[in-house]
């Protein structure tokens, strides 16, 4: 019997469950390697060559090269692991989050100052 996933009807949200963790294992472990300054330097020097050292799928590697965080999450990445990529890029959590929403960084920052994204209409997929 398949496991119950009651969170699948939450819009715009990926829950990092066992299936996603299995899919994203090597992508996430690559991210962890960026916690060492020497590895960050090697990654910056030649991103493609660095990624090729990891048994990741081509789609995962391309999503990293494109800094497409929604795509990385669809391929099993988890935001706290992916944070190592944008931290290596010197980008803040807020700027990285903005890239996932289709808003500009300025629009996103203003939304947060105005109290954040409202839960109204954002709790169920059918609300959308």
């Amino acid at each position, binding site marked *: 019997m398949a496991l119950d996933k*009651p*969170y699948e009807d*939450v*819009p*715009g*949200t*990926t*829950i*990092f*469950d*066992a299936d996603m*963790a299995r899919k*994203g*294992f090597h992508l*996430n*472990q690559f*991210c*962890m390697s*960026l*916690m*060492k*300054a020497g590895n*960050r330097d090697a990654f910056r020097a030649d991103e493609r060559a660095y990624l090729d050292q990891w048994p990741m799928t081509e789609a995962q590697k391309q999503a990293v090269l494109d800094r497409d*965080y*929604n795509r990385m*999450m669809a391929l099993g990445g*988890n*935001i*706290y*692991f992916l*944070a*190592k*990529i*944008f*931290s*290596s890029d*010197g980008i*803040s*959590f*807020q700027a990285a*989050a*903005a890239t*996932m*929403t*289709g808003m500009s960084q300025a629009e*996103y920052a203003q*939304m*947060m*100052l105005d*109290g*954040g*994204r*409202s*839960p109204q209409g*954002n*709790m*169920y997929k059918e609300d959308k």
Partner: protein
Amino acid sequence: MAKITAGVCTSHVPAIGAAIDNGKTGDDYWRPMFAGYEYSKQWIAEQKPDVILLVYNDHASAFDSNLVPTFAIATGEEFKPADEGWGPRPVPNVKGHPTLASHIAQSVIQDEFDLTIVNNLDVDHGLTVPLSLLFGQPSEWPCRVIPIAVNVVLYPPPSGKRCYALGKALRRAVESFDDNLNVQVWGTGGMSHQLQGPRAGLINQEFDNDFLDRIVDDAEALAQVPHINYVREAGSEGIELVMWLIARGALNDKVTLKHRFYHVPASNTAVGHLVLENS
């Protein structure tokens, strides 16, 4: 006998740590948030705890996909701040309390909570930001800290109910330790926030304020709220709030609310903060 005297609950947003480390606490953006911690800084200077049981979650810093303990207690002597991708925070190393931590580990396992025991542990913003918020920027942290790490990254995290019960087991463990120690328990993380996907930036002030009300006076019922409610209503990362229930479970059924603070935003997140004393 060691005694739990008080609890502190607080968000642990990494940008708060960066604001402290980079001298930005007086900026217009940050000043109102840090003002909410002024009372608590004075309060803790008077309380002088000997040990803090600091409940937090590791954000893929010490634990990666290779090893995911649901609950872990750190029994080591000393813990370094983690390099989370931009270099370690310039804060002092955290000194543990190996004898109390080992006593707690043995006690709660015999009390049917099968904790993982860890010795070498680099502690990330989840643990160091709350220390900075309460203690500022000392050259040494003024007390011992026992890190208690909770998995809230890989689904499923432990339920609120299980967290609340763990708090009760921690209390029994502390109270069976012979040395006279003033022990506090802190629960960190939250409040509503979502860091990922098209719904990033979600904040739910109504949910958060209801949580702040109920964790004081109605904690046992609050602990029954299931995971899906946190995710749906408070954002995918709002689930961190279950860690507050561990701290609350370790306190008396009746507590005195000494301080309450709520502020939006700190980066992507709603900041909540409570100071509770055992009455």
